[in-house]
């Protein structure tokens, strides 16, 4: 399952870091962050609850870039 989330982040490199952090989160099969359109597209693994996974994703993103937001 794929879902798109709106995000807020200031710099392009931070967006790349968020992408990396999201990819490494458990339950996420693949993730792409588009800095120009400020969107995060997350593909979840089978049988995962997107809401729960996204909370983890947000936590991990905050770790790499404090100044970011994902609108879950």
């Amino acid at each position: 399952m794929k879902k798109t989330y709106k995000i807020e982040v200031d710099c392009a490199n931070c967006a790349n870091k968020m992408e990396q952090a999201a990819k490494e989160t458990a339950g996420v099969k693949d993730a792409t962050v588009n800095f120009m359109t400020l969107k995060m597209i997350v593909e979840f693994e089978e049988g995962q609850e997107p809401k729960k996974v996204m909370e983890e994703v947000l936590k991990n993103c905050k770790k790499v870039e404090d100044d970011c937001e994902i609108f879950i």
Partner: protein
Amino acid sequence: MNKKQKKALAQILTSIVLIIVISAVAHWIVFHPYLEFVLYMVPYLIVGYDILRKAFKGIKNRQVFDENFLMAVATLGAILLGDYKEGVAVMLFYQIGELFQSYAVGKSRKNISELMDIRPDYANVERDGKLEKVDPDEVEVGTVIIVQPGEKIPIDGIIIEGETALNTSALTGESLPREVKTEDEVISGCINMTGVIKIRTKKEFGESTVSKILDLVENSSSKKSRSENFISKFARYYTPIVCYGALALAFLPPLFNVIMGRNPAVGQWVYRALTFLVISCPCALVISIPLSFFAGIGGASKEGVLVKGSNYLETLSQAKYVVFDKTGTMTQGIFQVSGIHHSKLPDEKLLEYAALAECYSSHPISKSLQKAYGREIDKNRVQEVKEISGNGVTAKVDGVNVAVGNDKLMKQLGLEYKECHEVGTLVHVAVEGQYKGHILISDQLKPHAKEAIAALKKTGIKKSVMLTGDSKLAAEKVAEELGIHEVYSELLPADKVSKVEELLGQKAEKEKLIFVGDGINDAPVLSRADVGIAMGALGSDAAIEAADVVLMDDDPLKIAKAIKISKKCIRIVYENIYFAIGVKIICLILGAVGIANMWVAIFADVGVMILAVLNAIRALFVKNV
């Protein structure tokens, strides 16, 4: 400017004023060293507080090596060495660069969303004799909506009342208005220019053309190009490498000096290491590459070329082989009467017999006969119509026996007929058992087809190939007329896929193959090619979904345009990569040997970034490429 940007601007301006005042006063009075330090710390903290905080948080979260860390170490280091002014200046310029970057990105985000300003805000629905504005999302299929001059058509549908001219330029880049009248289908996103029209909607808003296009545009550039992936990987390894490099630069030479029994000159080497850190900030690259692609995709969509991701833009720029479908791509896919030959009756009379006899058929051939006839058809004049499946019809028209059909029909009736030297479908006409001549019906080339092939060759296409299900004769004639290198005819849809696979196997890895079709039944080929281009997509959802690049109108010249746009964009991307990395490497070397000071470092960081961003924005301007 948004709130964050305004705050940053205020911080920058305040500290500039403070620095000027402090330096001016320092001209007259010599400060006590501690006082000078404290005075310079004020503007430094005002402008650099955020960076220090982020760098500290990064260390806490074990995300040490980022540009905040680089800047914090470089500026604090300079201040510790006593170069207060330089420390503050580096932080100040870094923040100016950041502000500029965020402003430029915000601006181009806005520009591009304005380019695609096709989202309708409301639909007019008549309720109890009064017009009511409602959310397009709430309009059900089959509702009658009213569109006034100057308004956008919100939902796809059919005109049931009124006629007008539509401006489709937001969708197609075509500035010529399109005339429409009752019974015509219209698509959402066009602007109604002259008359009031009533439309019966055929789709929901979410399924309408405008929603599909917006969806496509907003989600493009999420498929990242190789250049973008290269840069983000580069940035991941580059920053730590530079940090260790700086560390080595600060301590290895002094250590070496101590061993050799010379003055260690720690201060000088630490200063060089700090310069090194400032130069190395990867922002210019990391921001300008995605920005170039974003601007390129945005500019292309303004021209009616929708690209689904920056990877496709990249591949398109390497196109060397173009494979076309014939019908609907190079030709109009509309059959027209192109000649009446050997007629023993006046041409019009022959056409009249044919059109009347075929008046009950909805076959494209019959339609084209009726269209060429041009007048109202009085079906009462036609009796005893007999359709002979696959061959034609016989009927009584105005009391005379008429037979209209192909060779087989003539043979069946035992009549001699004449062959034609031209390519197309022949319709023979016999009246009262006598052969009266034939009508030639053929598909017409698109107006720009020939120029399109010439333009493609100019962009560096090596080979053009046409695939078609049509007869060999027809295909070869078209290919010759257009100057297409190779042609394969009488192919079934599955044959087209295997032909494309064969071509894919022949070419070199770096030469890309693009397939251009009208998207109607070539979805498998579209997805098999390196880049699938669907044209004339207005109103065809299937094409929008199957293709990687969508040409909104059906002008084949747009194929070359799309390639040119992609080449411009990729050229800008490479310019930025080489320019930014080149300047940085040169400055790093100069910094390491002590020629470049902190001011050069600031240029290598902020200056390069600003130039790269400005260059990236150039990708947006593609009207005359």
